[in-house]
């Protein structure tokens, strides 16, 4: 039982680590009172997903550069996940930018970045 668990950990450690990272990001989103740190949590969460895509495409072969001759399955890494991650990173950056813009506006209006203070200020109005 323990052997099997260790075996999985040894061969699949990347996934285990990534899901820890994923959980950390999600926990930050939920539990952190600071809005900027919440957004960093979202970024961490997304980065974990990007790394997950990279990890699953990894093979002990070579980089996905195709130079005309055919390769067998498993010889080169699949290029598709890498393209996906590049696109997803771009999307993530756009989201972060919009989020930060919103946070700046909230700070200008309420003078705070903390969610609990924000809740109090809004309740008073």
């Amino acid at each position, binding site marked *: 039982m323990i052997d099997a668990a260790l075996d999985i950990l040894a061969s699949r450690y990347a996934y285990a680590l990534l899901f820890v990272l994923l959980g950390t990001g999600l926990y930050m989103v939920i539990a952190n009172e600071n809005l900027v740190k919440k957004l960093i949590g979202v970024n961490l969460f997304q980065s974990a*997903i990007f790394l997950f895509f990279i990890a*699953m495409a990894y093979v002990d072969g070579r980089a996905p550069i195709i130079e005309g001759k055919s390769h067998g399955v498993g010889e080169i890494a699949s290029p*598709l996940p890498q393209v*996906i991650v590049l696109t997803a990173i771009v999307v993530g950056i756009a989201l972060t930018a919009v989020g930060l813009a919103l946070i700046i506006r*909230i700070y200008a209006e309420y003078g705070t970045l903390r969610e609990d203070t924000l809740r109090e200020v809004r309740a008073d109005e």
Partner: protein
Amino acid sequence: MSSVDLLLPLLVAVPMLLSTVPIALGLRFDRTGWSVAALTTTALVAATTTLANVVYTDGVVTHKLGGWSPAYGIELVLDEFSALIAVLVAVTAAGVLAYTRVGGPRGNTFYSGYLLLTGGLLGISVTGDVFNLFVFLEIVGLATYAMIASGDGPESAVAALKYLILGTVGASMYLIGVGLIFMATGTLNMGVLAEVLPAAVERDPTLVRAGFAFVFVGFSMKVAQWPLHTWQPDAYQHAPDGVTPVIAALVSTAYAYAFGRLLYSVFGPEFLTSTPYLTELVVTVGCVSVVAGSALAVIQTDVKRMFAFSSVSQFGLIVAAYGLVTESAFIGATIHLVGHAVIKAGLFAAAGLIAINYDARTVDEYAGLADEHPIVAGTMALLLVSLIGIPPSAGFVGKWYIALGAVEAQLWPVAVVILFSTLLTLAYSARLLEKMYFTPATPLEAPHVSESVATDGGENEDDAETAAGADAANDGDAGARGGTDTAALEAITANRDRNTVSYGMLALVVATALLAISLGFAGGFLADLLDPSFITEVFN
């Protein structure tokens, strides 16, 4: 026929490219955004209806982007299901412009966001690739956050940030699901996935099931299912009045469409029914949302917030219908998607119109509205009646098919929930109807109001507007916002100081109310559009 598929990428590319034009022109001219948006959306209506016509006569239209084979590249597909949604998106996006011309947020950047949103929504409707779907989900999300935040008060920024964080987490959940499915199958194309998934399930059911779970949670968040709906009421309430109709009508609808597409075209009915507890889970989430959404709607005081909770419950109905996995339930879900979009666009536009002109935002402030403004109150009442689902209306047909599906699947509790949800819808709609029709405005001053000359004048004017609205509706949706409205708007510009409600806004509200009723009669027609080819392909 040969080149009609080229319209597909243009549906997405044209609004996205043109979304830069208002900003660029904004350097020199102040108010070009509306014209650019109006031209683009009118062209999109023409393009989508042309394509839909081809789809319903000749069958599915596909386009391979860049000529790559579907196994690697991105494929755009317009079939019987997505054509309906694409037409709905284009028509609603064009229709709501009739409202924003005078009433909505102004400025060129707003219309840039509007076009970006339209392009993203059309992208969701036509894409045939699960990762491409994620990109469009995020594009729609980005445009939505920006548009919600364009409201005046600081509250709208807070609502937008809340939506941004939850929406991003939801979309990321979906991305994890895509990753797991990609691991299991090695492809991202929906058509190819549908073929290879059964084998993948046999090889490793856990991987595909985990993928499904992430997709389901992601979409529950995006579609706003209880208890993941918390972003939605804030977002709908604090968005500018001109933005809420388009967001409420289209954004969640497109997400729900995408979810249905994944359930039926990618995973397939066989996977849904053969996986233990899967349909039960989907149906339960849907049913709980129906009850919770309606119950929360009943206790709201703000009208826009009430409608927002109503959306939670109506989408619960659609998700529950997806989970039933019968042909009638699926047809019902599709009809309800379209019907609900039309009704909610009308309701939010009417609520915005009332808020701008009569400064009434809470249920109590609606008191006596029917006496003072019979046309607006009348259309609102018609829309509410459609929402409840009283027979000749769009709401009824969808619910009827879903209930039929529940009975076919022998899931009596679902049928009971549908009946119960109708009662709860009646409860919150009746509150508003009662306020508008049976509560005098302010008890002491009411007699004065009813005798005042100004009110009579207003009524006559309103009568003329109904005629105009009816004509516009008869001309078809294109007419409702096309030339007639522009002319009417020009005529009303002189009166703007006196009255901030334009003919365009009224015509839009009246047209949607009439459309909501006529969709009730057209329910069978909508079912026929789906039935012969799409349904048999999916269910057999």
